[in-house]
């Protein structure tokens, strides 16, 4: 989505056009360094003060054969001078490193958009691998676009020729050459990237030199070759004052967990088994030993959740993180945590399913599994983050609820939030809410299942004399926690466990509505469609449509006023990256009819998809 404003004269010979929002995408082979290139572009855009949002997209294979369609990796950056909430619907510029990348991505480029290709890679064999009958650079099929065919390979090789690197190593700099070109095109400074290169390769001066040379060469090529008639300028965004950094959802989740432990004055224990797209949380936390964080890479997801529960029994702030297939494996132990009433945070970074599905793509089809996916009556709070930075907030909130209510809590994020980056206004530690955790020590009148005003039982931990007790998965006496098979006790415990979770609703902020508080249409979201919906509703409202937006971060239990909010609107539209799971839940809870907008393509919603649906629904009222 590009909004042109006015044309200015740039400092060099090309003219500079000022744009509000620009989306660019870098695409190439898995080995071409696209993720790196995209991240650097993101960093730099952040530093110049744009609002931004990113969408990395990589294949399930580590490195499929060079030049193949299956091996294409991409990174999309949306940057803007206003607030944005998505990685952008379509592309202002596409930077394609080979024919396969061009083939699989061209459809997303705006008509008339900028297309930069590495013409060196358009060899016959690469064209064949991509399934091109003729060379698109020559056959006129790209006439609709502003095509810039640059022999990146050759130019880069020349640029770094005197750094003493091998041909192969020198070739690896070509992404920086291309990045330089794009920096020039969008008037971005080189300095943040050169600084990064210097740090990253500090031990290999030749590599630093080569990469910096390539970057600069690309930039100067843009300037001097004069192939670009225009450059583009995206001014800084008007965003709230403060100190910012860029953060992905997984980083934010990890930091949120560290923060929660700190706020509770306790220690974090993270047990996990690697799985895409959740592994980065493990990697992040493994680096935090100096915060007394212990991480445990278990032999599988079952062992991981069990280890987390074991540590929770021991008094840890216990977390286990995974994605769909791992959640399936953790179900049995989650049930045990429910009946033992121990605090635990379980993170599900949702990905495309069912089964292995589309492991590197995003989806939000695990909601009903989160709520219902255990045997027996097994209630558990379920939260979901809405944006990458929100993962930080919700990780803390998950721990607040887990410890206050002595319960496992499921926190849902998704592949798009996990890997996508956004600017984050860094919170001050003092401003974060303390988490109060008490461990009883007094043996007098201690009963393992005696409940407080929140229906929570006491968290007595090993090492405390006189509070020795046994927990387990058999039904337990309502006070002593001893094994108890009595029918009435079982029924009482079933109801008490349910009531405890239901009662959390009293402790949640009310649901707020963005826009009119009542009207024709409410768009109700959960999870990552928050971003596209926010913009879509804003834009529709600017055009005078009667539409509002409410976003659920608490899926179980829901906030107390949800039913009431829904009743204020004629229609409820629910966009979800699944077949209507929240929709089904809302219908069951509130007996309210819903319109489900479903997208299950492994990709986030585009703004215009939601806008179109809003228009359609409103036109039918």
């Amino acid at each position, binding site marked *: 989505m590009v909004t042109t404003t006015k044309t200015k004269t740039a400092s060099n010979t090309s003219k500079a056009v000022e744009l509000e929002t620009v989306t660019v995408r870098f695409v190439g082979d898995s080995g071409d360094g696209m993720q790196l290139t995209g991240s650097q572009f993101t*960093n730099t855009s*952040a*530093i110049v*003060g744009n609002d931004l949002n990113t969408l990395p997209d990589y294949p399930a294979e580590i490195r499929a054969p060079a030049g193949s369609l299956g091996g294409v990796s991409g990174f999309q950056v949306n940057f803007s001078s206003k607030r944005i909430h998505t990685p952008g619907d379509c592309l202002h510029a596409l930077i394609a490193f080979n024919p396969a990348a061009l083939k699989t991505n061209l459809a997303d480029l705006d008509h008339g958009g900028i297309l930069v290709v590495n013409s060196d890679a358009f060899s016959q064999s690469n064209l064949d691998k991509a399934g091109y009958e003729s060379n698109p650079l020559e056959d006129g099929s790209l006439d609709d676009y502003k095509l810039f065919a640059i022999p990146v390979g050759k130019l880069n090789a020349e640029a770094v020729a005197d750094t003493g690197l091998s041909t192969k190593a020198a070739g690896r700099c070509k992404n920086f050459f291309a990045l330089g070109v794009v920096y020039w095109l969008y008037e971005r400074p080189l300095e*943040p990237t050169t600084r990064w290169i210097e740090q990253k390769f500090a031990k290999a001066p030749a590599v630093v030199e080569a990469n910096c040379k390539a970057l600069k060469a690309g930039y100067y090529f843009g300037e001097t070759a004069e192939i670009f008639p225009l450059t583009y300028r995206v001014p*800084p965004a008007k*965003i709230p004052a*403060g*100190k*910012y*950094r860029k953060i992905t959802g997984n980083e934010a989740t990890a*930091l949120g967990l*560290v*923060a929660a432990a*700190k706020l509770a004055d306790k220690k974090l*224990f993270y*047990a996990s088994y690697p799985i895409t797209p959740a592994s980065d949380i493990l990697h992040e936390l493994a680096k935090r*030993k*100096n*915060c007394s*964080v*212990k991480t*445990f890479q*278990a*032999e*599988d997801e*079952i*062992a991981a959740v*069990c*280890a*987390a*529960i*074991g*540590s929770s*029994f*021991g*008094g*840890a702030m*216990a977390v286990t993180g995974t994605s769909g297939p791992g959640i399936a494996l953790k179900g*049995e132990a989650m049930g*045990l945590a429910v009946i*033992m009433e121990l605090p635990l945070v379980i993170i599900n970074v949702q990905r495309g399913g069912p089964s292995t599905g589309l492991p590197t793509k995003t989806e939000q089809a695990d909601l009903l599994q989160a709520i219902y996916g255990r045997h027996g009556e097994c209630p558990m709070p379920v939260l979901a983050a809405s944006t990458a930075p929100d993962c930080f907030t919700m990780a803390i909130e998950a721990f607040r609820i887990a410890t206050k209510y002595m319960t496992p809590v499921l926190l849902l994020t998704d592949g798009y939030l996990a890997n996508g980056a956004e600017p984050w206004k*860094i*919170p*001050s*530690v003092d401003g974060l809410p303390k988490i109060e955790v008490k461990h009883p020590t007094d043996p007098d009148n201690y009963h393992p299942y005696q409940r407080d005003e929140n229906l929570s039982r006491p968290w007595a931990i*090993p*090492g*405390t*004399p*006189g509070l*020795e*007790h*046994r*927990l*387990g*998965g*058999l039904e337990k006496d309502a006070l002593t926690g*001893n*094994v108890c098979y009595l029918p009435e006790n079982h029924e009482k415990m079933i109801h008490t466990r349910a009531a405890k979770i239901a009662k959390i609703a009293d402790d949640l902020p009310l649901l707020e509505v963005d826009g009119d508080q009542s009207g024709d249409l409410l768009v109700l979201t959960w999870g990552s469609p928050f971003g596209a919906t926010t913009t879509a509703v804003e834009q529709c409202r600017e055009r005078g449509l009667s539409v509002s937006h409410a976003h659920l971060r608490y899926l179980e239990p829901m906030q107390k006023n949800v039913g009431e909010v829904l009743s204020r609107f004629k229609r409820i539209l629910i966009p979800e990256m699944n077949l209507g799971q929240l929709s089904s839940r809302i219908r069951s809870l509130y007996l309210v009819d819903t319109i489900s907008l479903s997208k299950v393509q492994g990709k986030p919603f585009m703004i215009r998809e939601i806008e179109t649906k809003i228009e359609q629904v409103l036109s039918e009222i």
Partner: protein
Amino acid sequence: MSSQIPVEAVKLTAKQFASNQDVRWCPGCGDYSILAQVKKVLSNIGASRENTVFVSGIGCSSRFPYYMDTYGLHSIHGRALGFASGLKAYNPDLNVWVVTGDGDGLSIGGNHLLHAIRRNFDINILLFNNRIYGLTKGQYSPTSEIGKRTKSTPDGVIDYPLHPISVAIGAEASFVARTVDVHVKHLADTIERAARHKGTSFVEIYQNCNIFNDGAFQYATDKQTKADNIVELVHGRPLIFGKERTKGIRLNGLSPEIVTLGEGVTEDDLLFHDEKAREPSLAYLLSRMHHPEFPEPIGVFRAVERSTYEDVLQDQVTAAIERGKGDLDDILNEGDTWVVA
């Protein structure tokens, strides 16, 4: 170095480790004897109630924690070691015991056993081997013999049994032992050795299930036959057995053979046990001696020292903190930041 056993000022008695819950095993079950000896060992080593935790899975044997007045987790089937691993990794100061069965520990839980052993957590694993599924009323287990008829194998078991000690040695356990429910003193001594070992102690306990597999270990418990059917391992001593202690085990290449002392054979010709051998090859070889061809070894097969997971993890944490304690503010502000005015 001995294991992490938090010590009481005044030793508690065995009885003081009994919880107030009725013990619900079948009358005559071998589990009773093990329960009694574990309490005695805790008393002997001067353990404290509050720092001791018993963790179990599901099975008759796994009801164990309920009967101990210590902290306890009666978890889910096969996963006790998962819970114990997390608990010990988080809090290395606790004295952690795992009680499991041949089904719980070797069927559904076999993988966790391998991994706990290789990580060498300082925990004590007691595997009650009754060669049957007790709690689910009599299906065959991974230690049941070929041909055995059970509820789920009316035509006889067709899978070769696993030998718990061989499996543990396959994962290179630092402490491996075997004992028998009714050999009360041997049982207590072996459990105490396990308790005092720093690292994962794996103890197979032959346990009679008098309801579904009565007499499974009669050869090793019957007064008449046991001396011929078991051989006690003693570090540095030759393998001698038999009622009159006239029989011994000699190595022929890598094959053990039974010899009679006296007939041109002296003690020095026998296989001498070395529980501290760096490589577990001897322990493995001993684990291959099965009834009826051989007397079955009981006692400590292997006891070597090796760093424990929880200690090295704690060391890494300590070292990281020494390099610079993490400050939340700093962490939140890491990397490229920019200020919007």
